[in-house]
Each structure stands twice: as C-alpha cells, then as structure tokens.
C-alpha cells in the first residue's frame, strides 16, 4: 500500500504534527485545565483561587446551611436524574420513530435510498439552534398548534395549552435534535443484512412480529446500540433544547454547566459538573467499545 520512499517516518511525523499540536493544545489542554479548576476554590468574581479544594464536587451533593453545617442538597442530584431520564426517554422515542424508518429506507432501490438518506442527514447539517426555536413557533402561546386548536374549536380563544416550558417540550426538542443520529447507524447495519435469512424465517412459518423480533432486531443490534449512544450522549449534555423549550427553568446537566459560567460565576462547581458529565460519557463509550469488541469476537468466531 505504501509509496516506497525514504524518510517515511519523518514524513508521517511532519504530516501528523499539526494535528497533535492543535488538538493537544486546544482540546486536551483545556480539558486538563478544566480538571484542575474543578479541584480548586472558586472565586466569587469568576475564576478560581489557586488552592486545592473539593468544594466543587461536594457542592453537587451538599449545601452549607446557616450554621455552617453540611447538609444533603438534592437539587443537583435531581438535575442529573432529570438529564438521565429525559436522555433515556429521548433515546427510546427516537428508536421507536427511527427503527421502522431505517428499515423502510434500507429496502428501497439504490437511487431512492441515496436520496432518502441524504434527506435524513440534511437537518443534521443545519443550525440546531434555529431548528429548535422553530418549535417555539409550533408549541408556543398562540403558536401553530394552539391556533389550529382554536380554529377547530377544541379550545377557546385566549386559552392556552401551556405546551412550552415543560419536560415534554424539552423531550420533543431532544428527539427532534438527534433523531437522524439514530437512523443512520441502524440503516447502515440493516443495509448489510442478508435478506435470505428473512425468507428462510418466513418459509418456516415465522409470523411478521417474530420476524422482527427474532431476525431483524438481532441482526441490526450493532447499529441500534450505535444509534442509541449517538442520541443518548448528546442528549445528556444538551443545552439548546432545555434552554429554549424548557425556558431555563428545567435545568439539565448541559444548561447547569452553562449557567455556572455565564451567570452564577462559580467556575470550580461548573468545572466539577462538566467533569461528571465527561465521566458519564466516557463510561457510556467504554461500555459501547466493549459491546462492539464482543460482537466482533463473536462474528470472527462464528
């Protein structure tokens, strides 16, 4: 594969050097600095004192009361819990919406397939902020849904359904944001699927339900797991949907972190929460890598 040449190692180093330097300084560097900041005392004016302290992490669980005693404070645990629940729900809903669509697309002719997959990817490349605030027009007071309900006579003029600033609104926003990321990997694994297996199952009197359950689902499992992770991980750290559709009242991990730096000016706490989020993501990715490896081992053996 290689072009025979002298100085191959040297060329490689020269070619990769910009990558190492840029990502090393401007990606790994910031993450390390953030880890250090999370272990320091916060300065009320933003920034930190150079003094070791676990206050940032302790603050996630505890609060100091009037008497200077630490007591358990559930507020941030609730936010972490809400992020988990909403991210999980968004993943499940995306799967329910995305799975049949991915299957249907994978069974089309090459030409139709290409166009449909292109249409799935287009929203991903457009501005997430704008796509999310489009939902304000739909869900908001006097928006598309409310005015059509009024037009149809379901509700009275001036009444409101209070669709905005709820957990459901955030959930809609999350599903809408990351749905394409569910469909693409599932589609990729379904496209490779051997259709003769389906025929064989049908010949052996498999019902359609068990065809899905026993053949299609297991065969597309790598794509399903990949899609679930691609949806779950960004949902966990989402900022735009909870901020615009949740009105900043229902905080999620992502908006909590942003708030610490934009308004609360508690850097070490914000950095500590960011570290927790990063850790959760690393755990999910590690879990995924293990499943993938197992699957590969199984495939090479079997």
């Amino acid at each position, binding site marked *: 594969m290689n072009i025979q040449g002298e100085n191959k190692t040297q060329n490689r180093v020269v070619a990769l050097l910009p990558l190492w330097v840029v990502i090393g300084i401007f*990606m790994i560097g910031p*993450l390390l600095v*953030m880890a250090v900041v999370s272990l320091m005392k916060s300065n009320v004016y933003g920034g930190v004192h150079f003094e070791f302290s676990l206050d940032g992490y302790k603050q996630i669980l505890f609060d100091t009361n009037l008497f200077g005693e630490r007591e358990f404070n559930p507020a941030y645990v609730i936010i972490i819990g809400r992020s988990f629940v909403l991210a999980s729900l968004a993943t499940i809903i995306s799967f329910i919406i995305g799975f049949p*669509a991915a*299957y249907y697309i994978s069974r089309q002719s090459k030409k139709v397939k290409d166009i449909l997959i292109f249409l799935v990817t287009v*929203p991903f490349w457009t501005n997430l902020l704008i*796509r999310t605030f489009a939902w304000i027009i739909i869900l908001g007071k006097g928006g598309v849904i409310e005015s059509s309900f009024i037009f149809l006579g379901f509700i009275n003029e001036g009444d409101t359904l209070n669709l905005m600033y709820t957990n459901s609104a955030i959930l809609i926003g999350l599903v809408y944001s990351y749905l394409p990321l569910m469909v693409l990997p599932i589609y990729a694994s379904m496209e490779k699927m051997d259709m003769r297996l389906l025929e064989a199952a049908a010949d052996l009197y498999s019902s359609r339900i068990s065809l899905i359950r026993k053949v299609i689902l297991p065969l597309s499992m790598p794509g399903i797991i990949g899609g679930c992770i691609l949806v779950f991980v960004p949902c966990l750290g989402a900022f735009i949907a909870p901020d615009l559709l949740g009105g900043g009242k229902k905080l999620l991990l*992502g908006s909590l972190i*942003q708030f610490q730096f934009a308004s609360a000016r508690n850097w070490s706490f914000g950095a500590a929460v960011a570290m927790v989020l990063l850790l959760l*993501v690393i755990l999910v990715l590690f879990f995924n890598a293990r499943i993938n490896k197992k699957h590969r081992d199984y495939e090479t053996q079997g």
Partner: protein
Amino acid sequence: MKLKDKKLKFRHVWNFPGFGGWTAIFFGFLYIPILVLISYSFNAGKFAMIWTGFSFRWYTKLFSNENILDATFNSLIVACTAAPIATIIATFSALALVRGGNFKTKEFSNGLITLPLMVPEIVTAVATLIFFAFLGINFGLINVILAHSVFCIPFAYMPIKAALEAMDPNLELAARDLYSNKSSAFRTITLPLLTPGIISGFMLAFVISIDDFIITLMVAGGGATTLPVYIYSMVKMGVTPEVNAVSSLMLCFSILVVTGYWFLNRKNNN
C-alpha cells in the same frame, strides 16, 4: 394479474405494512418545523406567531439591521479562516493515516481526531473558555477562530479520508515507475484526485463553523458576536418575524451547501 400480485407479495416477505406511512411521518417530523419557520418568515404581521398575510418586508428589513450585518460578517470571517485551517490539518492527517501504513501512533492519532466529536460540546465550550481565560488569550474573534479550527477537524477529515481510501494507490506507484519524482507524483496524481474530497471536507467544516452556537457563545467575548449567537439573543427577547427571516436564510444556506456536497460526492462515486 391478481396471481402475479400475490406472488410478488409472497416474495417480498421483508415488506412490512405500515412502515412506509411511518417513514412518511418520520420525514414530516424532521421537515415540518423547518417549513413552518420558513413560511412564517414571510408573515406580514408584527407578531411572529400570528399569520396575517404574505410579505417580504422582514427580509428587506434585515439588510438595514447593522447588528445582523456585523454578525454575519463575523461569522463569515470565522468560517473562512477556521474551515481552511481545519481542512489543511485534516488533509495532512488523512495522508499520513491512510497512506502511512501501520505505525505506533496511528491509534493515538485516530483517537485525537475523533476527540472533538466524543466530548460533549458544552464541555468543550467551557473547557476552552477556562483555558483562554487562564492564558489571558482574549482576542475576540481570534478565540472563536481557534476553537472552531479544532472542532471542525473531524468533519473535514471524514470525506478526505473516504476519498483517499477509495483512491487506487497504484496510480501513484505507476507514476513513480515512470520516473516521476515523489513530489511531482503527489502534485500531478494524488492531489488532483483528492481535490473533490478536500473540497467536500472544506464544505462540511465551513457549514459546521457557520452553524456552531454553543462553543461560540462561551468563547466569544464582546464584539465577537456571530450570527447564531445574535439569533440566540434575539430569540431570548422573543421570537420576531425578523428572527424567522434571518434564520430561514441561514437554513437555506446550509441546505444549499450540503446539497452541493452531496452532488459533488455522488458524481465522484459514479
């Protein structure tokens, strides 16, 4: 005819009833909000959500709004600087990683490229904010450009890598056999063949940079407002038809670029 229909149905055990309709709903869910936004940008009335009639007035108003023009200009400066930087780094990396055979730091370098995709964007944003604050780097747009250059690398890398992998390395070998020296073989064979891939990578990096909001919001200081950040501040004050108009233009721009990318790659694949 009836028999034939039955036969066809029998053969296609893999067609499930209702999946087609479900897929239509799926695409509706993806595109209806975009269509609603664009159609409401032509609303004549002052209130964004109440339809009163068709008009271009908000679009013409955009061009006299200096804040929007400034923000657009900033966005373009950032994308026009960050996207080429990311594309150049991605091109060199792809050449080394795809053509360089197996070597010790390959896994590590692959990991570095995907790192910006793995780390949640909000974490990247605040980490970069802290980092710049500690180093005292406070140069407005330059901060944004630096952050974007890093974040865009993986997006520029993907199509370039794909183009390199699809290319036959024997072409360059043949040129070398015919006494072309290494650099001229690269210049006359590899680079021209790789150009569509590089352009694709540039386009994706450009779109990602233009559309980026979270990192820009955290990293940009005063005077470095880009268009998405400005749109955000407008939305926070309330959705107006003007926001709808500028947002529609942004959406259309991204969609146009990505469609261009798609046609470029499709031609390439055929």
